[in-house]
Structure formats: structure tokens, C-alpha cells
């Protein structure tokens, strides 16, 4: 019997699920390998027991926690899909400010009275996670690799080295050469240095490697003239979420 797979989302842009749908060349083969029993974005079908649940998005509210636990309870394996699920991603950008203040800012004084929200957290803060596909958005190829590993019963593994290495392998010019700060040296590889190849810099959406050499890296940033505050600002975009895991 084909493995039963479901896709779910919480606070997110749903771009990671869309990235799965954007695998046009592979989609018809994928449908042969697994039975997609839940995918609200494109399907109104519902399933019960699941072999694999891919979950996108951060967890903010008590009802999110409840729904996440219910998904976990009926899934043999649960995979964090994308940065929001993996590290709280960009949602954690405001995590150092009180939620009530944010609510007042966006919704005015009336909103505060009936809004129930909490700090965005990654899935791992509430349930065990069996694997993850990092990135904002995820890399379609990496999603396939993780899926394949799960389908043949192998523990999915992510690269332990940094984006810098992939950048060198693609023979891309280092952004530091044009005085542009890049988070490639401490960010987990697996995206094939996509943003740098496209002319941008790495902003760290995939999260840091297991043992980032932060000290020497900050020293380099300081040599490039960044203040402590600016360094924190660089990391804040995606990498303060590590604190959100606690």
C-alpha cells in the first residue's frame, strides 16, 4: 500500500506547499509514490492515519498547539516544512516585542481586547519532529530528497556544512568582494547558494549550521565595519528564531 501523506499549514505564507506544487516535472511521478490524503490548499479530502505529515508554518496560539498535537497523534512521522515550521523563520522577527504591543500597532486599541495570540514558535517547541526541510521557501529538490529518504525508511539528513561551500562549488564571486555582507559562512547548505547565484546575498533563511563559527564570523563582520547592533540586525531576519525554540 502506498504511504499516506498529508500537508498542513499554520502561520505562514504557504509558499513552501506551493513550491511542492511547482515541481511540475516530478508531480505526476510523486502521485504514483504516495497517496496524498490531505492537502487543504488544493484538496477538500480528509484522511485519518498518516504515514507522513508535512507541516508548514509557525505555532502562535493555543488552538494551533491543539491542532498540531492532533496531527502529530495521527502521523507516524512529522516533518517541519520550511523556515516558519523549522525555526519560526521570519515570523520570529518580532519575537523580542510584547505581542500586546504588536496588536495595538496593527489593529488599534479595539483589537487588543479580543485577539488571542502568542509568540510564533517552531513545531519543535511543542511536538517531536522527525525531520525538516529548511529554507524560505524550501528548495524543491531538497524536499524530494527528504521525501525519498522517508519513503525508503532512511532518516533524512541535511548538509552540516555552510552555504559558503556550495557557493565556491558554483564558482560564484564572493559578495564580500563587493562589500556586501552575506550569511553564507554560517548558514546551512542545501540551497545550492541560490540567492547568491541570483545576484543577492545569503540572509540565512535556512538557519545556521549545527556548530556555526560565530566568533570568527562576527570578527570578519566587524572588520567590514558592522557594529554589534548591525550584526544582530543581520541575524534577526531568520536567526533569532533559535531563541524561539526555547
Amino acid at each position, binding site marked *: 500500500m502506498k504511504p499516506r501523506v498529508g500537508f498542513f499549514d499554520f502561520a505562514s505564507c504557504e509558499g513552501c506547499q506551493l513550491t511542492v506544487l511547482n515541481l511540475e516535472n516530478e508531480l505526476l*511521478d510523486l502521485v504514483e509514490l504516495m497517496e496524498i490524503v490531505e492537502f487543504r490548499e488544493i484538496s477538500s479530502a480528509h484522511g485519518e492515519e498518516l504515514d507522513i505529515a508535512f507541516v508548514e508554518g509557525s505555532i502562535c496560539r493555543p488552538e494551533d498547539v491543539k491542532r498540531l498535537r492532533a496531527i502529530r497523534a495521527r502521523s507516524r512521522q512529522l516533518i517541519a516544512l520550511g523556515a516558519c515550521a523549522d525555526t519560526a523563520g521570519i515570523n520570529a522577527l518580532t519575537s523580542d516585542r510584547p505581542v500586546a504591543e504588536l496588536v495595538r500597532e496593527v489593529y488599534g486599541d479595539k483589537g487588543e481586547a479580543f485577539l488571542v495570540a502568542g509568540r510564533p514558535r517552531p513545531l519543535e517547541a511543542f511536538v517531536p519532529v522527525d525531520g525538516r526541510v529548511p529554507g524560505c521557501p524550501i528548495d524543491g529538490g531538497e524536499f524530494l530528497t527528504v521525501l*525519498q529518504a522517508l*519513503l525508503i525508511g532512511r532518516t533524512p539528513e541535511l548538509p552540516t556544512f555552510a552555504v559558503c*561551500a556550495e557557493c565556491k562549488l558554483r564558482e560564484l564571486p564572493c559578495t564580500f568582494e563587493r562589500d556586501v555582507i552575506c550569511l553564507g559562512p554560517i548558514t546551512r547548505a542545501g540551497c545550492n547558494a541560490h540567492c547568491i547565484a541570483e545576484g543577492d546575498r545569503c540572509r540565512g533563511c535556512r538557519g545556521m549550521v549545527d*556548530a556555526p563559527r560565530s566568533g570568527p564570523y562576527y570578527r570578519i563582520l566587524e572588520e567590514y565595519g558592522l557594529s554589534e547592533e548591525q550584526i544582530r540586525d543581520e541575524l534577526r531576519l531568520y536567526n533569532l528564531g533559535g531563541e524561539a525554540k526555547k
Partner: protein
Amino acid sequence: METRAATPLRSRPGPAETPAGTLAWYRLSRSDIDRLVRSLNSAYEVVGARCRNGRYTLDRITDPAELALEFPPRVHSPKKFLFPNWEKLFRFRLGGKIMLEAEKAAMPRVIFGMHPCDLHAVRILDDCLFEGEADSAYRAKRQATVLIGVDCEPDDYCFCTSLGTDRIDSGFDLFLHRVDDGYLARVGTLRGQQLLRRHLPELQPVDDPHLAPASKACRRSIRFPVESLAPVLGEVYDHPVWKKIGDRCIGCGSCNLLCPTCYCFNVQDRLDLNLKGGERVRTWDSCQFDQFTRVSGGSDFRPDQTDRQRHRFFRKYKYLWEKHQRTACVGCGRCSRECLAGIDNTDVLNSLFTEQATAELTPAPGVEYQPQMAELVHVEELTEREKLFRLRLPKAVDFRPGAFLQVSVFGVGEAPLTIASAPDPENREIELVVRAKGNLTRALHRLSVGAAIGVRGPFGNGFPVDEFVGRDVLLVAGGIGLVTLRSLLLTILARRQDFGRVMLLYGSRSVDAFLFRDDLKRWHLGEELDCRFAVQEFNARWGVTGGDITHLFRDLDIVPARAVAAVSGPAVMYRNVNPLLFGLGFSPDSVYLNLERHMKCGLGKCGRCQINDITVCQCGPIFPYSRIRHLREAIER
């Protein structure tokens, strides 16, 4: 006991390295080269440097106009074509049985634009990948690839001139020298010759133009001879410089990935989308990466960048030097050029040198072979054949017991002689024992007190005395082999409380042949040492057993588990004694042998002391048995 083949099975590198008879030269214009590229494109994938957005890369060239022959050193290494980052080793099918599908043959390729350093790098890859079981995936690509060299101008990061890799005389199929009105092609192989004949048939060879080698200037350099790198590094394993660069390193691995000689790789299975099959691929790895030295159980034997950077340097300049007598660095500067943390190989090496520089490391040519003069202060006859010499050196020296001195008598020659006295960094005087046997030793015997004797050294790795601390020590000496052990014994006795039981087994032809008879008598009667003697001629006065030294091993009361053995004598003794020691239960790590008699120049150059893959004077002459058990030449002959 594991055995190793006496000579490694070494497959020849694929391309015909044989020069094409007499070296031929051809004159080419740029339009000849364009025609060559166009013509080659029908049979080969042509690769060369081309400029995109101000940056040169080595890429497929279909339009000859795009091919650049003068380009800066700042391109990625051509390694990517010979040993690509992503290489399929084989295909497999899942489901029931596994079916192997062979990889297709390598694509014929011509690489235009190998700088001399990159050609040198290919030699290093050959050394490493053809060694033992040849890497057939590499061999296939190497064989199918035509290498065409071009010259290059060093930039700020190059230091090829320090390593002698700024020029090259072989290892290419063709080499294009830029001359005023075009190029002079130098043929390196038969294949190179045929390539020109086939694709530019109208070209006629020209006479050897006797090109003056272009002189290159590198801003960076290693300020001492390349051969001293390995010995210097041997002394600085714990040097603070490793932590200094380790603390800067961000572990990005760029230094390895860009290096033209780094070839460490990882192997992974990649599945087909339909999960019916897949391929096993290898991808480049880096000794700077976290996963690289993680072993089963999760521990990491080289856990931080300090260890990893040291390893990188040691591998480049020491380990592979000792194996292949070539540094695994060609001075291309790629690692330093692209290092965000600014780690620079020449800086690191030069700073180590400055601190380690001593009289032994000499900058001027030939100076390392020049002795200094010592004074003979005492001569004493030990036996009919052996005399003790006491020399006063120009300055006090330190060494390990087992080290040797190169001793010269001008007009006669030079020989290594083991030091018989204990090391004493305060004392300028040392003792040697000389057996009059050859020209030099007979000449020494003729000298009297006050004579000047040439000396170099001390050289060599002696006994690791500190590792013996707390253990029982068994010394086994045969004949003149006692000289070496005397140095060790005196060292031990000077700090006797640091060791357990100390036992000396000494075998000789006859009592008359005993060396250091006064010492032996004192030791024999004293409490510090348990001495046992064997002579082939029985002698009641000394109470010695008749027979050779193996007799002393009967009823030998020693606990091998807590003992080390130091054995010094002729090969025949090793042949007989080693099995007895191991029979008793000594481990190969705790038995030390002396291979001093093999040495000659003391610098690891002359090749005399090369026993199988080890140079005795550099790595020895004292070795733990485990290190040399595969050296059949040392132990069996």
C-alpha cells in the same frame, strides 16, 4: 600478523608520459590555435578559460574566439574536470536484487590553459590516486584528457616560486609559450605530437628555440627550503599558531574546495525519483567540515578548527611530503586568495620557521652538508677493535638517546655514528664509539687528542624516553648495539626513580669483545639494574651463559604488559629475538628497534636509508616495531 606487499601495486598513469622521442617544437599563430580549437571540437570537449562579467572561468569552449590563453591565476582549479565534485561511481537498482550498471567511458576532453602550478597539481593527484589500488574513475578521466599548458603571471597570492612549481618540463601533452608573434608549442608526449599532426597537419616542426625560462616574481614566499617544511612541522604540533588560525577559521571549507590537489571525498547514494534505482556518487569533502572526522558513536577525533587547520597544513607539507617527497601544495594561492578569514599559508609557515630556525636549518645552498669543527678531547681503547672518542662540540646540543652525529675526516669522508653518552644540554662534550672497520673509522682510530673532527647534527629520532616513564624497561643489546643503549641506559639511570625494573640483556662474541667493561661491572654489582650476559664462548669468571643471546630469554622474569623493550644489534639478532619478545607477550608498540646501520647522509636525501617506504635518518633510526614491521628489507636482511 598483517603483511604488506613489499612494493605497492602502482598502476601507471594513463596518458603516455613518455616524451615524444626528441622534443619537438612548433610555431603557432593565434589563428592556428583557433583552427585547432575548431577542429578539436569534433572529437573532444574543449575546455579553456573564458571571461564572463570580468571573471575568468574554465568552461566548455565552442567558439574559439572565447578562448583566453593569458588569464590570471584566479580561476577555479582544472581539478573539476579530472576529479569532479559530482561523480557517479555506479548505478544500482532496488527491489529484490541489486543490479550494477557500469559507468560509461570518460568523455575525451582537451583542457587548454593549464598553468604550471596546475600541471604540478595533477602530479600530486596522480601520486595519491594511482597509489595502491588505482582510482579507476580518476584514471579513466585522466587518460581521456589532453593537458595543454600555458604560462601565467603570478598575482599577489601566488607563491609558486617558493615551491618550484612556477615552471614545468613534463606532465603536459603540449605547452604553449607566448612569444612575440604568437606561440611556441612544446611537445610533451607522443599524444601531443599526434594531436598537432592530425588537427594542424601543415605545421612544420621548428628547431629547439632554447627559450630562456621566464623569470617570475611572487610577492609571497616561503622563506626557507621546502624540504625543511616537514621536519619543522614535526616539531610544532602543539604550537600556538594553530589555535591562532583555528580561532579565525569559519570552517567554510573553501581552502579545500578550491585547492587543486585536495581530493578527499564523501560517498552517497542518490535515488531515482521513482525509487526503483539510483546511483552511488562521490562528492568533494573537506577536512574543515564537521562531518569529516565524525566516527561511529558520534565522537569526532579532530573536533575543532585548530585541529583541522593543523591537519590541513600537515597533510599539505608533511604527511604527503613524507609519502611522496612532494608537498601537496603547488603555491597557487587559491586557499589564501579566497579565505574570508585571511588565513595565509605563507604567513603561517614563515612564522613557524622564524621561531624554529636553528643552526641546522641553513639557507645557503650546500650549507646543510658542511660540518662544523669539534675537538677530540679524549680517546680510550675499549677492545681490540673499538675506541671511545670524547668530542668537544662548538656548542652544547640536545638530542634523544639513539640520535647520531655525522662525523667527517676531510679527505676520507663522512659517516653517521651513534652517540654513546647521555644527552645533556649543558655539556658540550659527547662520546662516540668507533669500530675500526672501513676507511673513515680507521682514519678516526689514527687520530689523537687535540685533533679537529668535522661534525653535523645531531640528527634522528631517538627513544621516546618520556613514554617509558613508569614502566619496566628491557634492554637487549648485541655487540656494538650496546653503544646506542648505553645512551639510553645512562639517561634512565640519571632519573632512575621514574622507571620500574630495568633489565639489560647483552650478548657478544666473547668476553673480550664486551664494550664498556667498567660500566658493565658497576651495573652488574649495583642494585639499579638487572644485568644478564651471554657469550658464545663460556666464561666462568663473568658467570655468563654459553650460547647466543636467545638463551637469556629462557625463564625471563618480566611482565611484558607493563614493560617496553629496546633492542639494538645486528639484523640476525632482530630475526631471532623479535619472535621471543612477542612470544612473551610484548606488543609491537612496546618493542623499539634500532636501524642506525642503514644511514648515510643524515638529511633524508641520498636515498641510502630508504627502506621500503621509510627514510631511516628522517623517521628513525629508532622505531617502534609496529611502525616498521612491514619493512621486510630492514628485518629480514
